[in-house]
């Protein structure tokens, strides 16, 4: 058992190799990528990144993505909080069925919904807005947020609620001043997963946008098809999409695993 560290080390090495290759390419010119096979950039260049940070069609892609992901995360968690509280504290007509119905939406293949979503959001005049993508992503993020938050809230004893009422708190004063700080870790985890699934999804985001709210991932696919293969540029854009995720993981590193483990199944 002394060799136990070997397994995670090899696994992490396997995870890092494709990422290394992407980062490596992002510092090369497209000519170098296509012309020679080198493990390190021979002709180190920051040109690819310079293009992305100076061309609005590129950097606005990041702004658009971050905008709808943020709206989605805030919206999903905000409406999921009271709902999860209701599921964890009360029994009411149809509660079990409702909970299961919510979860079934997590099982709906986005490919099934692409076309109807396009028609629905065009009909209500939201096509190509950040709101449209943020709302569409609540389809799978709200069920997930309710599920995670409900798990965390279950772990909070009901005596906390009762003591607060005895102390003269109104419901909202209790909910906002006492309850929310108590489950802060759970809210962090729920935000993390909402951010994650909204950030990585492309099919719906691409279907619901054309110019003004185009996500960075869609900008990348367009560039790949029109101007030949600007591999260096694509690699740099890809590398930059990893960074927001890495920052978010760092903040919730101690809670990531706990989030799902506490959710009820």
């Amino acid at each position, binding site marked *: 058992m002394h060799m136990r560290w070997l397994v995670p080390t090899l696994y992490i090495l396997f995870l890092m190799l494709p990422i290394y290759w992407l980062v490596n390419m992002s510092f090369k010119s497209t000519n170098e990528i296509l012309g020679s096979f080198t493990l390190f950039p021979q002709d180190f260049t920051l040109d690819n990144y310079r293009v992305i940070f100076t061309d609005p069609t590129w950097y606005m892609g990041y702004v658009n993505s971050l905008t709808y992901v943020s709206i989605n995360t805030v919206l999903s968690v905000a409406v999921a909080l009271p709902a999860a509280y209701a599921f964890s504290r009360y029994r009411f*007509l149809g509660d079990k069925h409702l909970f299961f119905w919510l979860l079934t939406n997590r099982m709906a293949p986005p490919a099934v919904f692409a076309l109807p979503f396009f028609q629905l959001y065009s009909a209500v005049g939201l096509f190509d807005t950040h709101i449209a993508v943020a709302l569409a992503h609540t389809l799978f993020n709200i069920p997930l947020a309710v599920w995670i938050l409900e798990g965390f809230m279950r772990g909070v004893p009901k005596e906390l609620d009762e003591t607060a009422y005895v102390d003269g708190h109104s419901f909202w004063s209790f909910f906002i001043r006492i309850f929310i700080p108590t489950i802060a870790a759970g809210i962090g985890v729920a935000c993390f997963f909402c951010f994650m699934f909204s950030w*990585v999804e492309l099919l719906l985001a691409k279907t619901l946008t054309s110019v003004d709210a185009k996500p960075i991932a869609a900008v990348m696919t367009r560039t790949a098809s029109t101007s030949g293969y600007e591999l260096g540029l694509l690699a740099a854009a890809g590398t930059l999409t990893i960074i927001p*995720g890495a920052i978010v993981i760092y903040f919730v590193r101690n809670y990531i695993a706990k989030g799902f483990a506490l959710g009820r199944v």
Partner: protein
Amino acid sequence: MNQTTNQRAWLFVIPVVVLVAFNAVIPLMTVVNYSVQETFGDNTFFWSGVLWFEQMMNSDRFHAALGRQFFFTGMVLLIEIPLGVAIALSMPRKGIWVPVCLVLMALPLLIPWNVVGAMWNIFALPDIGLMGRGLNAMGFDYNYTRQPGDAWFTLIIMDVWHWTSLVVLLTYAGLVAIPDAYYQAAKIDGASPWAIFRYIQLPKLKRVLTIAFLLRFMDSFMIYTEAVVLTGGGPGNTTTLLSIDLVKIALGQFDLGPAAAMSLIYFLIVLLVSWLFYTVMTKDEA
């Protein structure tokens, strides 16, 4: 927890219900609508009953895509679940390496799916990719854009790379939650590592493994973007999975009726398998 009955709790749930209903019920009804109608493209629709469903159920193309989908999902589950458990078991439980492991392992989960596809597309190319070039240098005749076997190998290894960490994270969370007393008791009894795993860890992990299995089943069954960017369903149709085929029919050929019928069958399969598995796994708890 003892829950009190309170019908006013519905008020708390209404925002969620309204939002999800807007996103789920209206589009789903649109799909149901298309699935029972015929159109000639001029926005006039005719009732066609179960025609599309019959056509879909008898279509070789659908059967082939469904078969490929089950093969893909089966392989992915067979590899990722045991591998994820093995890695979680050998991870350190405390110390500075724990956050380092967790952060590095979670990284693939947060990369946009088309970037994952593009990354592997290039990484596996036989001329400029590290993996493709490496495999060829080792004497394998590897070219995933031409040989179906290689395309499948690349598709599966990409998914293993992308999602095994989710299983690791969940299993690890389950392992950390097992109280020390269990291990001490096992030590006194002189239990072998296998006995500890079989009789202490595995039963305690049942719940998180159920979640891991369900999530991996659902997401691998719905895979679209990564696979499209990596192989585009090719070479030929050899890696055309259900979602890829569906998008081809719906947005490529604009055959709304068949696409809608296929969507509903597709959704029902995911629901049915998830429900069956969930019922089997939790039947002795209820």
